């Protein structure tokens, strides 16, 4: 085993363990902290794949914004340090089934892919020195998000969804009697 594989296995084990803890903790703040650990593990996986940009954005958005907002909401709405959360409801069976279904179909699809078991070679591109490659890729990512031939439609759909959520939040928080 190479050092990279050891790090990958340790990270994957940490992700699985903390993901399990997220759904089984009765204390919501603890669950949220395990969620942070899970998200951090995913960031480590991105680093292992040499996707520095994605790793940094993962930390910035998920750990720095979303998870902290969750913790904030839990602290505001729940009694501090109460352990009375019900962990499972009657949909638990369905959720487990769905998870198994998605996981197994992912494994089957990936297994059918011819390059699944080959090692990926490091990213190279003719004419671009390796230390500027990262910058190049990030620029291409940004351009493809607004390119009609690439991802402009998913990008716009996502922004409409976000706008709808924003309006929804305003409506929910609106004081009707004023």
């Amino acid at each position, binding site marked *: 085993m190479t050092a990279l594989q050891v790090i990958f296995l340790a990270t994957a084990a940490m992700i699985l363990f903390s993901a399990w803890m997220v759904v089984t903790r009765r204390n919501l703040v603890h669950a949220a902290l395990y969620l942070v650990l899970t998200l951090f593990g995913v960031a480590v996986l991105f680093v292992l794949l040499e996707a520095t940009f994605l790793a940094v954005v993962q930390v910035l958005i998920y750990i720095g*914004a979303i998870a902290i907002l969750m*913790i904030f909401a839990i602290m505001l709405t729940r009694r501090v340090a109460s352990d009375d959360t019900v962990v499972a409801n009657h949909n638990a069976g369905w959720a487990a089934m769905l998870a198994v279904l998605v996981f197994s179909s992912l494994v089957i699809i990936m297994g059918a892919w011819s390059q699944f078991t080959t090692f990926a070679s490091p990213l190279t591109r003719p004419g671009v020195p390796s230390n500027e490659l990262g910058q190049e890729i990030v620029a291409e990512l940004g351009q493809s998000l607004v390119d009609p031939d690439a991802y402009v439609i998913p990008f716009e759909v996502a922004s409409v969804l976000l706008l709808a959520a924003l309006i929804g939040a305003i409506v929910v928080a609106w004081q009707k009697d004023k």
Partner: protein
Amino acid sequence: MDENIALIIEWVLKAVILAFGLITGFAYTTYYERKLLARIQIRIGPNRAGPFGLLQPAADGIKLFFKEELIPAQAYKFIFVIAPILTMVPALVILAVIPWGESFELFGRQIALSMADINVGVLYILSVASISVYGIVLAGWSSNNKYAMMGGLRSTAQMISYELALGLSFVGPLMLAGSMSMLDIVRAQQETAWYIFYQPLGALIFYIAMLAEVNRAPFDMPEAEQELAAGFHTEYSGMKFALFTMGEYVKMIAVSVIFSTLFLGGFDGPAIDRFVLLGPLYLVLKVAACLFVMIWVRATLPRLRYDRLMAFGWKLLLPAALFNIFITAVLILLFDLG
């Protein structure tokens, strides 16, 4: 193999120098602040320990070492213990991407005056800064004390609100330099002019947001002494308390370094192309000037009321930051700057 060992030694040395520099910097920032505050309030300030009171930080440190450390019986022990560490570590590692100068030659090796010049340096700074709120919010929560809890909540709300404006004010220098690497941003400023002249509004927004980000007056809501009994670190004592103070001052230094690099030309200064080693000196001088303004603001302005603080962040600072990006983009296109 020799090359690898030399590289490891170089990195370790640089890391140790940076960490020790920051910790010494922390000790003397407290002294700087106390002396300056005293002068502004027509007092003398610390003057007993050593000449001009210069040994005062050491005396404070020794005192805190011998203090008893209390952990409240109802606290969540593990989180209570790691919270000060979580505050301290991001403050120390955030400066890894800051360039202190161009590279120079020593014993036949090119030595770069920065820890790591990564191509997403700006994003790295933002993401590490966004983690640093965890230490405070967890300290507040794990103390199991309503004052500490309120302090933790306030700081979360405040940091989330001002982080947006802070992140958006990074975008101006980034667009002008056309790169997210801090070294490229400094080089671009050497070619044109310091970005505080191109980006006066951006620099102002950055400065205000960074005061809020490090919980300095007039945004020191999380630890408002009069109403919250010191806020999130009410239950902390001894070295754990010292770690919080240390985190706060190291963060002050860190954001000053970032401000200097983005808007004041970083290590740029007279004769920098002939004497590379002047770079760190110039940067330290700029940081000292930034810290001076921070302390001056603390001595001058009263604390904002909490609702005003949130309204200011969301209704004034955030739109102003967005407007700044828009104007910068238009001007770059008009005058072909970028």
